[in-house]
């Protein structure tokens, strides 16, 4: 067995990387995959609370790298799933405690036993980002349909290409269909045209995300929520399934336009 390493990153903070990582991890584990997710945001640990595993942390990523514990000891098992693990970030250290080659070594060790290794990247374009993509086989860029998020996504996509980790794929998060219909939010085809990269998921703005995050139960566990369905569709696409881009509350013909665009998109 050799796992695929996928890094979830963004450029701008607060666009939904941690939410996405948690949900994709749970969704992939729900499909029977062995999954480990790594919180790469050293000093700003968050993936643990989003997954609801914050009470079980003993060791963290930096403990593993500095040899204070064995890898297995830092892997917190999520008991809701057959095979889902979290390696939490260190909270009292900074990004310089980890190097890109540490991440490559760690992932090489994990690859043997896992199907998927998901890495939650910190915002920004510095050390933390470089650590997070060092071992990546593929990179998913989360963005929102909003000027500053799209601009920063473009910057990060360029850096990912420069590091030869591209082409990145886009997750467009927090799409508000009412605003889109009113002409007051960038539409999916607009963002794809601007960024000129492949789309892997569209996640609607959904109150269920807030509610589920409050409880530490990722929204994919709620099979009725729109965001939950969107995240599980992304997980299926990661696994090579051909899942059409359908939007639950779209009647404006967006997805006709979108599929036309994708067909004529050239690749």
């Amino acid at each position: 067995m050799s796992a695929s390493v996928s890094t979830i990153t963004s450029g701008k903070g607060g666009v939904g990387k941690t939410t996405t990582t948690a949900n994709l991890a749970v969704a992939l584990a729900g499909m029977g995959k062995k999954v480990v997710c790594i919180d790469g945001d050293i000093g700003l640990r968050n993936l643990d609370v989003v997954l609801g595993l914050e009470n079980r942390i003993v060791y963290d990523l930096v403990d593993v790298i500095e040899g204070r514990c064995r890898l297995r000891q830092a892997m917190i098992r999520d008991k809701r799933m057959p095979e889902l693990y979290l390696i939490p970030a260190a909270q009292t250290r900074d990004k310089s405690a980890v190097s890109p080659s540490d991440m490559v070594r760690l992932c090489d060790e994990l690859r043997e036993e896992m199907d998927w290794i998901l890495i939650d990247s910190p915002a920004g374009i510095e050390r933390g980002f470089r650590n997070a993509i060092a071992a990546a086989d593929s990179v998913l860029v989360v963005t929102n349909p909003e000027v500053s998020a799209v601009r920063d996504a473009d910057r990060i996509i360029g850096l990912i290409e420069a590091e030869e980790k591209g082409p990145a794929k886009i997750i467009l998060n927090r799409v508000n269909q009412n605003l889109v219909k009113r002409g007051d939010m960038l539409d999916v085809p607009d963002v794809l045209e601007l960024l000129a990269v492949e789309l892997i998921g569209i996640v609607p703005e959904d109150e269920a995300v807030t509610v589920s995050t409050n409880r530490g139960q990722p929204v994919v566990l709620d099979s009725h929520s729109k965001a939950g369905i969107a995240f599980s569709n992304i997980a299926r696409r990661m696994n090579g399934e051909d899942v059409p881009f359908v939007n639950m509350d779209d009647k404006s013909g967006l997805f006709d336009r979108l599929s036309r665009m994708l067909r004529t998109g050239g690749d």
Partner: protein
Amino acid sequence: MSSWVDKLTSRKPKSAEAAKERLKLVLIHDRMDITQVELESMKNEIIEVISRYVVIDQDAVRISMNQDGRENRLVADIPIRSKSHSRTR
């Protein structure tokens, strides 16, 4: 029928359109790592260099940035005045 409505609504483009148009320009400059001002002086220098060798129609010169996938393309359309034309003058 409701032409005044059309006028009112068409005068102000939707904010999403404004966002897209602004982003297009911002991304071009970000990707090239060049400011609007530098781009302007680059254009002027291009024109100056070409003018040293041939006579060009300065007013008809068009130099623009086009996006082609993730690549940017500098597209220059520089009409050159024919020799016979300039000689007869």
